[in-house]
């Protein structure tokens, strides 16, 4: 069939001298299994003797727990264990600020809060048992708007240590919030400044101020969350987990259990979508582990879809106020930004997204003077995690809508205004980011050309008063994102072990997890490129911490760049070892030899000297027996930020511009995305099929963020925890996508490539807002652009968004 021919074709090209897999359309290696239903996800794995667990969540948004009675549940036949916080003394707090215990003690702070859990013979019995648990609550006032949380005299979300019943009084001040409580509702603050704001303001001819409000959305991975925990007879823990960061979590679980991390093995079955949702530990994982420890049986815990909506992380709502200035010629002078983030009741990675937001604010364009202040504020809402783009959808939405407003104020075409202020290669920004490769201006002009931006933008704006109720508009937005890892942890590295067996088959053992993005295929391509082998000669092992070398995890669009460089390093070491041995055998130098098409060849003549597998067997079976097995650890040449958030955190940066054309039905408020012209600076295309898939998927995720997805949280309660009311984009709604890749050939990137995973989702909402303005003359400042919201804005029924924080 066609696919086999496609693979054969690429293999043939590799076999020929100078042939390459780089840039080709390479099918994903695990796709045939997935497309025949043979791939075993965590949901599909069942261990002998396994019990099924379910969690009892709070029935109240904010309340004291007066009493829990589990006796009836415990008496139900088939129930093996029912646990509450009282059954797990010395629970360790989890989360980024260590501000919650997996099982809540004396207080619930949101509707997702875990009160008790059951392990039973079947899911049905576990669910039945949950209904028999009796909980007595005493309601507390609900905080559902972060601005209310900031008011003087606002009730506190974490007023006292969790488990103030004395469970934790052995722990002292200076400890995590779960142990100390917090005397205000501010989870985290970030303050960044560069240059001299007074000077920036004095130099400005024009100053524009805008406010924006962004909403809750959630990941909606098609595979719901799940975990299987099992202890062996020596007390070693085996965890089947969907984590994106197995090595970090091994340490966290060890702290949680008070055992040596070396005794924890994490196996990652294929995962039904990640998108950042699996970067933190959530209470269900420790709870499954507690149940496994107590019952001494494997325990499987899988969410229902409703639970997934209620109890998995979100992208956090943000309120932003931006004020920026420019000179008459359009040169930006200063930018001042304040934001408030709804943190929800606990702190996960969502609270730290300002790290990324400030990069867009300070460095997407050249802004000499800049300040940024933000607060992540506790409420009784769902808590926010990391989600593809990590704050950058929010920051870019605001900055890029604001840029259009400024262009209009200064009387410039938005494209020209952007080009005037756009970053260029070689720029080191005041925040310390070094743009060694930067195709930003190419992205701008390419997207503009493909979307016929300038002409359409001019023409559309003349038709605001036309009688036709269907209006067309074009808008553009651009983005900057880390593309060469992000030095957040001690190390941003990745290890590789590469083994070539006596049939010249390569086992590539990498720390980098595969979450559907296609890393296993790209890493194999890079290795094949070095070793002159076809893709079919590689097996990837990437999902077992007992085998794979350390990696910091799948986040920050880092895997192609970091794990790619690591895989290349290991392959080069193997190659040099093989060529060294071959040189001795053929009485020549290693430099005169190469590996191509499964052979050691003479570089000058291209002549095949020996079959690679034969060469390797001769190493294994000689009197100086040698294995070809190499290791490599790649650490990118980036730096940690200093205390002022300055520093070059990524070894490379990715750029993109998207021009989006919309149709607005002014009679109904329905906005349709007609065409997206996207230009992405990806360094270099490694796998064209894979990268197109990443960009298309990201654009459609961005479309959902802009138009349809809205997790409706009212008074701490999610109103639409199902796919009927939480609207994902469906197949008939997708726009035409015209995607161009700018190949800036990054000097540090693997074969010149940079990260791309998050980028495509980031620009969409801003470009759509700008397009709606171009179509109608009405500026949308609140997401998402649902028909109702757009209709109200178009017909003057929406009060403009204002900044009324309670400072």
């Amino acid at each position, binding site marked *: *069939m*066609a*696919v*086999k021919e*496609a693979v054969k074709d690429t293999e043939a090209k590799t076999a020929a001298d100078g042939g390459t897999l780089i840039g080709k*359309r390479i*099918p*994903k290696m*695990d*796709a*045939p*299994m*997935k*497309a*025949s*239903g*043979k*791939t*075993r*996800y965590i*949901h*599909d794995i069942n261990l002998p003797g396994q019990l099924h667990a379910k969690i009892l969540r709070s029935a109240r948004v904010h309340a004291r727990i007066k009493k829990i009675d589990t006796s009836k549940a415990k008496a139900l036949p088939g129930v093996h264990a029912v646990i509450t916080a009282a059954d797990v003394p010395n629970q360790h707090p989890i989360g980024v600020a260590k501000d919650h215990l997996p099982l809540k003690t004396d207080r619930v702070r949101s509707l997702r809060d875990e009160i008790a859990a059951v392990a039973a013979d079947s899911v*049905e019995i576990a669910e039945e048992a949950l209904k028999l648990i009796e909980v007595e609550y005493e309601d507390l006032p609900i905080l559902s708007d972060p601005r209310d949380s900031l008011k003087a005299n606002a009730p506190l979300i974490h007023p006292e240590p969790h488990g103030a019943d004395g469970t934790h009084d052995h722990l002292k001040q200076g400890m995590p919030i779960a142990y100390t409580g917090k005397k205000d509702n501010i989870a985290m603050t970030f303050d960044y400044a560069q240059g001299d704001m007074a000077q920036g303001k004095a130099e400005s001819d024009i100053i524009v101020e805008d406010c924006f409000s962004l909403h809750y959305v959630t*990941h*909606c*991975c*098609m*595979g*719901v969350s799940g975990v299987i925990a099992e202890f062996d007879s020596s007390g070693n823990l085996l965890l089947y987990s969907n984590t994106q960061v197995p090595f970090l979590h091994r340490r966290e679980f060890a702290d949680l259990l008070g055992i040596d991390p070396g005794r924890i093995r994490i196996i990652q079955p*294929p*995962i*039904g*979508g*990640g*998108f950042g949702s699996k970067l933190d530990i959530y209470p269900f994982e420790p709870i499954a582990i507690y149940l496994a420890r107590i019952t001494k049986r494997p325990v499987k815990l899988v969410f*229902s*879809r409703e639970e997934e909506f209620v109890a998995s992380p979100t992208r956090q709502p943000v309120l932003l106020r931006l004020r920026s200035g420019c000179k008459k010629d359009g040169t930006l002078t200063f930018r001042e930004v304040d934001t408030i983030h709804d943190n929800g009741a606990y702190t996960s990675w969502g609270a730290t997204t300002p790290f990324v937001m400030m990069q867009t604010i300070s460095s997407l364009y050249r802004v000499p003077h800049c300040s940024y202040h933000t607060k992540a504020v506790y409420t009784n809402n769902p808590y926010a995690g990391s989600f593809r783009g990590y704050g950058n959808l929010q920051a870019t939405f605001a900055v890029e809508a604001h840029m259009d407003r400024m262009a209009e104020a200064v009387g410039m075409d938005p494209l020209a205004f952007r080009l005037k202020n756009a970053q260029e290669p070689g720029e080191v920004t005041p925040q310390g980011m070094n743009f060694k490769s930067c195709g930003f201006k190419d992205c701008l002009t390419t997207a503009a050309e493909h979307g016929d931006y300038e002409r359409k933008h001019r023409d559309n704006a003349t038709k605001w008063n036309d009688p036709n109720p269907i209006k067309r508009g074009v808008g553009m937005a651009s983005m900057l994102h880390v593309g060469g890892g992000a030095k957040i942890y001690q190390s941003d590295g990745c290890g590789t072990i590469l083994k070539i067996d006596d049939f010249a088959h390569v086992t590539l053992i990498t720390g980098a997890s595969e*979450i*559907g*993005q296609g890393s296993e295929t790209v890493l194999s391509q890079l290795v094949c490129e070095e070793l002159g082998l076809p893709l079919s000669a590689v097996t990837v092992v990437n999902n077992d911490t007992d085998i794979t070398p350390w990696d910091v995890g799948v986040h920050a669009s880092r895997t192609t760049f970091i794990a790619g460089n690591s895989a290349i390093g290991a392959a080069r070491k193997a190659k040099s070892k093989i060529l060294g041995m071959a040189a001795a055998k053929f009485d020549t130098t290693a430099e005169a030899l190469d590996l191509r098409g499964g052979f050691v060849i003479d570089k000058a003549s291209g002549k095949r000297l020996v079959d690679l597998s034969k060469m390797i067997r001769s190493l294994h079976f000689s009197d100086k027996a040698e294995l070809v097995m190499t290791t490599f650890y790649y650490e990118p040449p980036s730096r940690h930020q200093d205390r002022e958030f300055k520093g070059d955190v990524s070894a490379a940066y990715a750029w993109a511009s998207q021009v989006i054309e919309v149709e607005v039905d002014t009679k109904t408020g329905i906005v349709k995305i007609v065409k997206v012209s996207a230009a992405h600076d990806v360094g270099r295309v490694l796998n064209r*099929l*894979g990268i*197109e*898939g990443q960009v*298309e*998927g*990201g*654009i*459609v*995720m961005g479309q959902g963020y802009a138009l349809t997805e809205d997790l409706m949280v009212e008074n701490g309660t999610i109103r639409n925890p*199902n*796919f*009927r009311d939480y609207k*994902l*984009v*469906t*197949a*008939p709604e*997708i726009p035409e*996508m015209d995607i161009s890749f700018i190949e800036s050939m990054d000097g540090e990137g693997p074969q010149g490539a940079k990260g791309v995973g998050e980028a495509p989702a980031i620009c969409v909402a801003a470009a759509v807002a700008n397009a709606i303005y171009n179509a109608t003359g009405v500026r949308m400042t609140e997401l998402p652009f649902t028909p109702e919201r757009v209709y109200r804005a178009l017909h003057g029924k929406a009060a403009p968004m204002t900044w009324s924080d309670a400072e």
Partner: protein
Amino acid sequence: MSAMVDITFKLNGINRKTRVSATMSALDMVRDVLGLTGTKYGCGEGECGACTISVDGITLNSCLMFAADCDGRDVMTIEGLAADRKGEALRDSFVEHGAVQCGFCTPGFVMQAHHVLEKNPDASEAEIQRGIEGNLCRCTGYRKIVDAIAGVAAAAK
């Protein structure tokens, strides 16, 4: 616990006899009783298509169907389709077109694609898009899924 029912039906071409609880869904039966895990749970409410199976030649959401209602019917799951020449053609086209990322939605799409093309071998792009409207994918943005199905339709001509 609810009453048990004995049912007899054809599963992927083989006659089967099994005992299920009266309230069990067809999805739980194929996954948990019969051990065919290619059919996925995505929502349990008929909103995502991950659980798509074919019953008497019509695709439906197995999460909404009672297992007991399979009695006397001809049921096909992804495992059955994948073993068939038409299923192989779809699989290869999905692979070749890059229509698979995390793959969790893929069995449901392959089942639905088969149904769309059986009904209308000449399906246009818009007809394919409408035909898979009930299946959700969070990864691919659907473009390559539509291309993969159109590829099979074109190859059949």
